């Protein structure tokens, strides 16, 4: 029963953010895709509520945590549902493609579920800090600021943003305790939640067949990677969800289109991991560069608006730290410019081996080859390429701050941290090679294409 209650509480997070599903930009997508957006809004709203309740000295209860997100969702949902939106178009891939893509998708999810259930890919960080914080927060009925400030808790990276521990603590509150063996399995939910949204977004530039094929490849690649990088129960799967959807939304957007979905996703990413903030900066920079190259208007204003929710989310966490007497901000790995360039060869060698992704590198190689073969206009793919190249650069920069050979640390961190880069690479390659962002002039909304005779 504990596990069941925990699972039901996690599945209820989209209910907390249900308002997002009624946003006019999302009503063109199917129910599962809209539930994915609701999951993101639910995560952000729950996290901010958790911070506010703790600051106000109000003990967490399920109703206290749920009420503000539900109220906000209700108000937003009612307001947004009155705004006209594009009609939903049924997803109808051809039979052969549906069979192949469905087989790959189903098999990937099944194998990943098995891997997590069998405790074959549980991140030890779940036991060292992600789950530890959640269990203690649930017990304390609030963010345990005493614990976060305790010098003997420094191993648990207390400055990390709180979304994952808060969401797990919410479910643990409902369950009565942490079902430790189940928590890794919940990583699967984030991967599964991303897929309908990604396919829905891809369909704006690709045929249903093409979107199904890229979606199947994406889930197969990232499923294998999550298992290989032993990411069960840590923050990698939610981060992957948020960043992937943000990148896909920006890749397929029209000129001047509202950016509710990518802005929400980047805010959620920034509340999930420090790397989420880095990704938000990279993706926004990529989108701004793409817009500037395309001669679009109000590039800086739109970039600032896209980044603003992520900045506000991090600011809320830093404000909480400040008001709680905690050290404000994120710890660095050393002096900003104290770089050990002698580690570069080791970083290159270890970094390359981190690209195996559980498939001997095929997950990377196939999209890269298909991307190159498509000879795309790279400028159009900058929201994704900025994340891919930027994450590699950021990691190399970070590893050069180590005081000893970073090979071992690269071995267990790079396969995880590079997963959003792999995701962005697949999405960019899919759009480029299957017709969405190829040579100039080929970027057209699939809905605007004439129907086949």
């Amino acid at each position, binding site marked *: 029963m504990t596990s069941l209650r925990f699972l039901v509480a996690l599945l209820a997070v989209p209910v907390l953010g249900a308002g997002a599903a009624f946003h006019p930009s999302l009503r063109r997508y199917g129910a599962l895709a809209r539930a994915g957006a609701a999951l993101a809004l639910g995560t952000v709203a729950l996290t901010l509520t958790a911070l506010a309740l703790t600051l106000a000295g109000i003990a967490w209860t399920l109703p206290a945590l749920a009420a503000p997100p539900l109220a906000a969702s209700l108000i937003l949902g009612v307001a947004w549902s009155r705004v006209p939106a594009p009609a939903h178009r049924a997803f109808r891939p051809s039979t052969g493609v549906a069979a192949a*893509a469905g087989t*790959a998708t189903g*098999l990937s999810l099944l194998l990943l579920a098995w891997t997590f259930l069998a405790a074959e890919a549980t991140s030890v960080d779940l036991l060292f800090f992600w789950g530890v914080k959640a269990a203690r927060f649930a017990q304390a009925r609030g963010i345990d600021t005493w614990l976060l400030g305790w010098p*003997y808790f420094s191993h648990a990276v207390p400055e990390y943003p709180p979304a994952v521990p808060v969401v797990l603590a919410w479910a643990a509150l409902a369950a009565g305790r942490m079902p430790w063996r189940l928590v890794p399995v919940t990583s699967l939910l984030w991967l599964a939640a991303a897929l309908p949204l990604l396919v829905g977004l891809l369909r704006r530039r690709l045929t249903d067949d093409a979107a199904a094929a890229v979606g199947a*490849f994406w889930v197969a690649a990232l499923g294998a990677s999550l298992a290989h990088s032993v990411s069960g129960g840590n923050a990698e799967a939610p981060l992957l969800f948020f960043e992937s959807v943000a990148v896909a939304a920006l890749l397929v957007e029209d000129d001047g289109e509202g950016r509710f979905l990518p802005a929400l996703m980047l805010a959620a990413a920034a509340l999930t991991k420090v790397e989420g903030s880095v990704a938000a900066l990279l993706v926004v920079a990529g989108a701004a560069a793409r817009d500037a190259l395309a001669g679009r208007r109000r590039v800086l204003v739109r970039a600032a608006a896209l980044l603003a929710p992520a900045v506000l989310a991090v600011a809320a966490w830093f404000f909480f730290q400040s008001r709680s007497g905690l050290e404000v901000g994120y710890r660095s790995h050393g002096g900003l410019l104290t770089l050990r360039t002698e580690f570069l060869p080791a970083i290159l060698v270890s970094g390359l081996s981190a690209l195996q992704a559980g498939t001997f590198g095929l997950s990377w190689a196939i999209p890269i080859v298909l991307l190159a073969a498509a000879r795309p206009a790279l400028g159009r793919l900058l929201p994704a390429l900025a994340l891919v190249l930027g994450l590699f650069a950021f990691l190399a920069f970070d590893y050069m701050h180590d005081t000893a050979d970073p090979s071992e640390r690269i071995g267990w961190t790079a396969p995880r941290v590079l997963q959003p880069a792999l995701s962005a690479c697949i999405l960019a390659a899919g759009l480029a*090679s299957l017709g969405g962002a190829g040579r100039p002039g080929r970027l057209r909304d699939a809905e605007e294409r004439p*129907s086949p005779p």
Partner: protein
Amino acid sequence: MSRPTSGAPPRRLRLWLIGALVLCLFPLAPRLVRPLREQLQLPVTPVDRTDGRRAREWLFLDSCRPYVPPGARFTVIADEPHAEMSLFMMAIGLFPESRPLPHSHFLVPALVQAARAKYVLEYRRSTPADPGARLVARVADGAVYERSVPP
């Protein structure tokens, strides 16, 4: 409005689909060569198959839980310093209603902290750290002791 596709998928589309199916083989292949019965065994700890040492330490802590009352201060002692550190880290989450105190932290002794602990969980040690402590229970890979400490 749906846009039905006609005819065979183009070559690149087939490549994506074949790629997706090929990628599935990598997690599938190991399952086909290992005995099914072994794979269907439910894990006892969350890290049974990713970190055997942590799994054993987790089991030890879990078996100590019934003997540490809620709210009690306790410490974990192990001869092996890295084991002591990971035991301490895991104990904070596994005993959310109690108060773990480090015996060492990142291999640096924290004896002043540990001295405040009423319960001592000893992992794979042959002799108790405090000879005056009362044995509460012997558990897998260790024992739980209780000692007198100032409130």
